[in-house]
């Protein structure tokens, strides 16, 4: 092989791998991206049943119902709209009524959000950033949230 051919093989091979990588990424972006929505967003954007989204808001006080062991129902609200959520499993350490929550899953045909993951991205002093933004947008942001969030301790469990 001449020097030129060697270089061609090298460059061609590199471009080939790069093309494969880009294709993989574009494909994955089409299939596996999950959008964050507040309950109002879900209504406005007409998120259909079966579309995977992240739903964020506050756990409505008094809405938490535990039925048959690990089956859990609660409402997620942003002050304007509420969406019922169903989940089966052990709730994260800091799941509480009246606090921020992010749930991942999809709406079913009856309009109930079927969550397979509940994220507890917060502790007692911290509100998930997405939830805080959504609450500000809907005008239901209270200053004491901001105060609490401004405390220098903002650890969260991933």
């Amino acid at each position: 092989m001449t020097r030129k051919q060697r270089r061609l093989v090298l460059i061609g091979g590199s471009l080939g791998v790069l093309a494969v990588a880009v294709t993989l990424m574009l494909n994955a972006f089409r299939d596996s991206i999950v959008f964050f929505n507040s309950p109002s967003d879900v209504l406005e954007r007409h998120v259909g049943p079966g579309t995977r989204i992240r739903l964020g808001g506050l756990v409505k006080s008094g809405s938490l119902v535990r039925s048959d062991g690990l089956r859990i129902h609660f409402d997620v609200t942003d002050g304007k709209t509420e969406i019922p959520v169903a989940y089966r499993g052990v709730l994260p350490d800091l799941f509480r009524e009246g606090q921020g929550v992010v749930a991942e899953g999809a709406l079913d045909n009856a309009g109930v959000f079927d969550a397979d993951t509940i994220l507890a991205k917060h502790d007692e002093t911290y509100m998930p950033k997405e939830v805080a933004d959504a609450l500000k947008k809907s005008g239901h942001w209270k200053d004491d949230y901001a105060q609490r969030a401004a405390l220098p301790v903002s650890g969260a469990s991933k």
Partner: protein
Amino acid sequence: MIPELGHYALMLALGIALIQSSMPIIGARTRDPLLMSMATPAALAHFAFVAIAFAALAECYVFSDFSVLNVFENSNSQMPLIYRLTSVWGNHEGSMMLWVSILAVFGALVALFGNNLPATLKANALGVQAWIAAAFELFILTTSNPFLRIPNAPFEGRDLNPILQDPGLAFHPPMLYLGYVGFSITFSFAIAALLEGRIDAAWARWVRPWVLGAWMCLTLGIAGGSYWAYYELGWGGFWFWDPVENASLMPWLAGTALLHSALVMEKREALKVWTILLAILAFSLSLIGTFLVRSGVLTSVHAFAVDPRRGVFILAILVIFIGGALALYAWRAPLLKQGGLFAPISREGALVFNNLFLVCACATVVVGTLYPLALQALNGDKISVGPPFFNATFGPLFIPLMIAMPFGPLMGWKRGDLLGAAQRLLVAALLAAVAVAASFAISHGGPVLAPFGIGVAVFVMAGAVTDIVERTMVLRLPFHATLRRARGLPRSAWGTAFAHFGIGATLFGIVAVTAWGSERIAEIKPTQSLEIAGYQVTFDGVFNRAGPNYRDVVGHFTVRRSGRIIGVMAPSRRTFPAREMATTEAALMSRGVSQLYLSLGDANKDGSVPVRLFFKPDVLMIWLGALLMFCGGALSLSDRRLRVGAPRPARAKVKPALQPAE
């Protein structure tokens, strides 16, 4: 008094870093030996002052000086000594101090042991090192001063974030930082080489130990973090593709590529320009990692405090260093002469293959991590790029790399023999085929691809053994001759085999636990039992226990296998009054390399307790593999070749092309 002393020492360190960042470089340009020789004492003095500052901060923590704001916010006098010490870096300011301290240690090491370096290279490298130090010290002093006092000292501190109060955290951040900052040395050398416009095999020989050391620490740091997440977060997951995890994976991938391309450069003087670029990229990704976890862009356990000024400052550091380095690269890299030629099928070709796939895999992680941030900045859409994305991109790129890996070490330099290598790997391939068949036979259910994953893992492990077997001629020579050959093998060959075996082991663990792990979630009352993978776990009840700064509600569980008691598991819910925070302390029971994993929820009023019970087959292989990689790195590091330093040019000329394939 002590905090002020530390503060003052840090300012002096900044001053020295500024001198060190200018004088030696000017000296190197004007060939002034006096200015160049300032680098060594400056680096040592810089180290001394940073050490004083760090010691002062540590003193405040250990003796619980709550008049210091940082200590008040992150420590508590009730905490055991070890956590009072580790909380030094369990917060933003302290972790930056740790960053700078490690940087100073490394700078001093280069100054002390760099006597056989060309004077200009040493002066330039130490100068660049001081730029980084100065930037971070300025950052600490202006936006994150750990020595700030509060006028009225409180009586008790606010406590360290409970999930950080864990032995795993004692070594996870220092290890990661040793890795991140270790790449700063290769970065400095790369920039120094660009400034000089000259680079040779001796450069690679000098840089390789640093790459190896940084890579080893990073490997262990990532593995440690993953194990910590596994047992502390109570979900039983070992990797979440969380941005903060990706932040450490990106420099690891780039560093692994650098490790291999530096090898080509050292042996064959080829891939010079590429190696320099990788050195710049590895450290840039370390900086991006620091930026991602420290700036508050991401909300996670690592984002200790959110202060926009800090984000902007780190972003400026990022832009100046990465942008500057890449601009310098674009300008000066064409000056570097290209070296050794090689055929596509050769050891060099294999290492290029490795680099190509590693860099592409790294790029997918970079894109997946940064894309949501970019999108949010552009149009405000909030998305999450989770495991499905990375499984669909990173996986397909990593598998060819794994399959090709055993071929590399069996190939000769310059021109390799693919068929010969394939023949020698026949046994390994057969073993892999047996493993695939066996896992199909044993497993019921699980993804169809999983047995093939096991096959690839076995192929990688067997391939690593094949390399050693071929070199020592086991079974073909009498035993004592084999032993002699084994002893005569360069340590780096053993290192390669260990590290490659390790990655196979890790892959094995990941595939097994992902495909065949099982999970039970239930609410159980005392005397009730759960069955999982042939184990019977009986709930005996809960009791309370008090710790130094927490209260535990401990569940008591008896584990039986075919009716025989094999042990007890005691997971707990731990409440920390100082922060009114609760954590889940999972209980683990190892069975060989598999584990039973049990975590507890909050007890209900009727006495029942929600539990999560996992069976994690071969899960320990994941971290044992990382440990093997670390050992492999250590073996390579102890290789004679790296200790004796650069060979004299005269010797290299005697047999330039006829080096035996090793």
